[in-house]
């Protein structure tokens, strides 16, 4: 019964995308192992680190805690959909300029999470940014540079640079 794969239709980074998955595969596994989009990272696989953060129907979620089959009909944004042919997204640029990454495992999650915040609240306080990013852990860079990068990106997007 359960070894039969399920056919799932989604919109992934703006494009209609279909895949076959096992019912016990997480969305994270589908992204990385089935669709070969390895930008989304696995840290803890239990909802604590946020490395696997993707945007699903306008909300950030931990893709390790979503089943692939649950994404039927959903609109999903992963890190692969953030830059455009014209260049990096201002948040990506700000992470580079502010040295907000070292190993980079946490970075896609931080960028997807920050993007959702800035789209909702273009001028968040530092406290708000820290609160919003509490579900994203970084083991090497430290949070100051990450928070500074998000503030810088907010300023760029708001034309205050």
């Amino acid at each position, binding site marked *: *019964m*359960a*070894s039969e794969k*399920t056919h799932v239709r989604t919109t992934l980074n703006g494009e209609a995308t279909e895949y076959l998955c*096992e*019912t*016990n595969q*997480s969305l994270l596994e589908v992204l990385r192992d089935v669709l070969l989009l390895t930008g989304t990272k696995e840290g803890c*696989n*239990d*909802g*604590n680190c*946020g490395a696997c*953060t993707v945007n*699903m129907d306008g*909300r*950030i*979620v*931990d893709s390790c*805690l*979503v*089943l692939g*089959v*649950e994404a*039927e009909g959903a609109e999903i944004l992963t890190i692969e959909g953030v830059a455009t042919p014209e260049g990096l997204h201002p948040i990506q640029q700000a992470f580079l300029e502010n040295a907000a990454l070292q190993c980079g495992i946490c970075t896609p999650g931080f960028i997807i*999470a920050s993007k*959702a915040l800035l789209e909702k609240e273009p001028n968040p306080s530092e406290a708000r940014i820290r*609160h*919003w*990013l*509490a*579900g*994203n852990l970084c083991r090497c860079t430290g949070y100051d540079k990450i928070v500074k990068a998000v503030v810088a990106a907010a300023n760029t997007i708001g034309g205050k640079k």
Partner: protein
Amino acid sequence: MRPIEYVAAKTVQEAVTSLAEKGDAARPLAGGTDIIVQLRGGRRQLDRLVDMKAIPELNELTYNASSGLRIGAAVPCYRVYGNAEVAGAYPGLIDAASLVGGIQIQGRGSIGGNLCNAAPSGDTIPALIAHSAVAEITGPGGSREVPVEDFCTAPGRTVIQSGEILVAIRIPAPAAHFGACYMRFIPRNEMDIAVVGVGASVVMDGNKVTACRIALASVAPTPVYAAAAGAVLAGKEATEENINAVAEVAQSAATPISDMRGTAEYRTHLIGVLTRRALQSAIQRAKGA
């Protein structure tokens, strides 16, 4: 996590039938932030997951100033605290819903799932009890209602029988000059399990408290409704002395254990501190309401 059958139910009836067919080998799936972790860790083994999120009744959040609030069992936390009317009327529930996990967890995790997971530390449960919430349950034998304080029976266990589902949580409309608060103690700022949590609510008449409810998390095998603690304040002035008396009775309602998060003695101390603070905040909010 081993292969499992996934059923996206479209109606309450379909969910009930699908669950009843498999007995204890099937469970509902809401946001999955507890059950997926449990399945992956091997703490639960199931043959079937029945997804609740496509059932209209379980996705509804409706508020009416006279009939109160109805939270569909699968409504994620963010929708509850993101609704300005609900946030104004049920401040204790909002405190709790906005501190479950981080933003990612709140995007999926539901209050219904928090209640049905029945962790002693479930943050929304004492808040629901303080707000006099009632669980609406439907199963093969029909529907019934259970006050939230009677819902959890042991760690991870509830009154829900196999084949039954929680359809919604109902909270009565707040009385005039009602206030509530939920507070927990954790060693970090965010993303941790409550060492102790306290939900408090009051109805005020000037400086007099006409009704008071206190409920506790992480101090017993289930969330605790400390009815005797609330009763201490009913009909009395909201003085420091009276608030201290409530905290003392709340301490005696708990049976805390010692574990890596804190000793029983520390937890008892925290119950006192948090009961006083949550109560003071509920009183302030009631005076502003």
